[in-house]
């Protein structure tokens, strides 16, 4: 009988704690919404912060889409990536823009709150650069000839440097 009472007490305790955690989570969600509605001055306008975050997402899309206008994707050669690869590159560029603006920028700068215009520039540049780099690295991974030529080039440069140093030591 005592066991049953203890179990019931434990169950009631668990239920109350879970209800409390749900309430605290919803309260923190409200707090986040309040914080996102804080206004920030930009170009003489007092705009809520969520507008800037949304603009970062939009510029990430724009930057990755703009890379489709470069010679890599507009050339009519055989090297042009397929549609599936292009979609993959665009998604990668979009995520690199978001990571650049929301992760790299706060991590690599000392400012507690990075300026909005730099966040926007970072999203634009990182998304564009991400697409180009992903395309180049993907081509390097697929193309065996390119890998061999890069490897040969690196080996020849390293051996050239080693020759210079060993000759220098020999002369002494």
């Amino acid at each position, binding site marked *: 009988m005592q066991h049953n009472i203890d179990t019931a007490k434990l169950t009631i305790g668990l239920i109350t704690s879970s209800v409390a955690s749900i309430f605290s989570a919803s309260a923190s969600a409200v707090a986040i919404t309040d914080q996102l509605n804080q206004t920030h001055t930009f170009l003489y306008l007092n705009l809520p912060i969520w507008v800037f975050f949304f603009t970062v997402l939009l510029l990430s899309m724009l930057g990755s889409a*703009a890379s489709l*206008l*470069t*010679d*890599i994707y507009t*050339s009519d*050669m055989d*090297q042009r990536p397929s549609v599936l690869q292009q979609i993959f590159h665009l998604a990668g560029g979009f995520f690199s823009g978001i990571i650049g603006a929301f992760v790299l*920028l706060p991590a*690599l*700068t*000392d*400012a507690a709150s*990075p*300026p909005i215009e*730099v966040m926007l*520039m*970072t999203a634009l*540049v*990182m998304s*564009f*650069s991400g697409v*180009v*780099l992903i395309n*180049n690295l993907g*081509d*390097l991974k697929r193309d065996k000839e*390119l890998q061999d030529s890069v490897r040969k080039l690196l080996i020849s440069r390293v051996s050239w440097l080693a020759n210079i140093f060993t000759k220098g030591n020999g002369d002494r």
Partner: protein
Amino acid sequence: MEHPIIINFQVINNITPYLGLFMCAVVMFSGRYCTNRKSTSTLIVLYGFIWLGLLWADVGSTVFVPSRHTILARVLLVLSMAVLMLDIAGSTKRISKLKSKIREFRENDSKN
């Protein structure tokens, strides 16, 4: 009455990253510069990262103070980028001339 100095060292310091990013955009999007080669496009993108890093240093760093030396380095970086642009434009021009000559030779061959 003293005239205000419009272009001072601070202005040059602030302008150079935006100028560099603009030059990168010109190379990547203009038809005069062929960026189909992997090395060229990678180089331009890396230059873009350099300019972005300098922009971060300007606005995001609490320790970076621009001096004449850093401004001189930035200007030299812009100059090196300008030389790179000339190089890419020159090679693009040469390759397009070669292509048109090859096309002419093929047309003459087909006529003969």
